[in-house]
């Protein structure tokens, strides 16, 4: 899922400083699962902003809404009435959701309430970590299901490097060396010989280095 974290409240307050009526829109997709931008977080942020503004003596009217997904126009359009009443929209979705909102409501100020951080998994309640860099050319079949692009600090394809110590990366004792994990897993799978295959230089063009990416499925288009 896409992981995001709430922007610092000071930054959000600064963004909405000149508005008297805002609409906070959550998304029930990824950002709800990582407890950043779902209905509950919309209520919490709404309450916090009202408290902060009331304390300043400048009351604010805050409408709250949460959509099934903010990355699809059909769902975003459902917020039309509430958007019309607001001076600005504060979206708690990922960057994709914020932009879809801006696209659908061309003459409305749309602000991001979150920083979109990475594609990852839930390790445990309250802990998320990166697993995928969206590089556009998956090699997990060759690396025992563990991604060195997302999880090696140097994105090495033929690791580990000399900085791998006791299974940890040299950048921090809290970061596993993914190449150590790959070796351990291949050993368990009895497929260590896979490491003899040398990865050629990676083509980064599908990773976004060739410009913004787009996918078209002709069979699904209407």
């Amino acid at each position, binding site marked *: 899922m896409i992981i995001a974290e709430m922007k610092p*409240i000071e930054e959000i307050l600064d963004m909405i400083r000149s508005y008297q009526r805002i609409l906070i829109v959550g998304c029930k997709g990824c950002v709800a699962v990582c407890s950043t931008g779902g209905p509950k977080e919309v209520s919490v942020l709404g309450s916090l902003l009202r*408290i902060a503004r009331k*304390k300043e003596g400048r009351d604010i009217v805050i409408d709250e809404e949460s959509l099934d997904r903010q990355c699809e126009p059909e769902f975003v359009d459902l917020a039309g009435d509430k958007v019309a009443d607001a001076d600005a929209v504060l979206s708690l979705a990922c960057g994709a959701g914020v932009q879809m909102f801006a696209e659908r409501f061309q003459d409305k100020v749309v602000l991001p309430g979150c920083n979109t951080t990475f594609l990852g998994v839930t390790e445990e309640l309250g802990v998320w970590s990166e697993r995928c860099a969206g590089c556009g050319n998956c090699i997990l079949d060759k690396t025992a299901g563990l991604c060195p692009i997302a999880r090696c600090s140097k994105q090495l394809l033929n690791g580990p490097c000399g900085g791998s110590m006791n299974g940890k990366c040299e950048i921090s004792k809290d970061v596993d060396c993914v190449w150590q994990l790959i070796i351990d897993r291949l050993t368990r799978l009895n497929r260590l010989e896979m490491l003899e295959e040398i990865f050629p230089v990676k083509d980064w063009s599908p990773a976004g280095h060739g410009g913004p990416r787009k996918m078209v499925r002709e069979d699904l288009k209407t």
Partner: protein
Amino acid sequence: MKEFEPKIIAFCCQYCAYAAADLAGSMRLKYAPNIRIVLVPCTGRIDVIHILRAVENGADGVLVAGCLEGGCHFVEGNFKAKNRVRYVKNLLGRIGIEEERVEMFNLSSAEGPRFAEIANEMTERIKTLGPSPLRRENSTEENI
């Protein structure tokens, strides 16, 4: 000038603090009348939004009273509450509301006198801090 009388919302677990408040009553203990008790089935039920709503609606202080650590009827509800209270304190601090206005306490159902003590302690603390900044702005308004 009339002395400031704080309004304090107390979220009390039914297995401990609420029973302790009951006991304090049965024991005819006198304690500050500023506490408004809200019965909850476990402090683990209290979410960040409940505490924020209390503050937003004009409470001068909020206390969450749960079981002694290790004694939660639902095993770890009071630990969840402890984390949430800490989280709310941080949020409030960052928007300029004194963190001390929100506090978590732990006690058992047998501790009626302790409940009275907590009520007095929290009332004194809030009296020292003064009215909630939200009420100071609208001092004539009774929000609760």
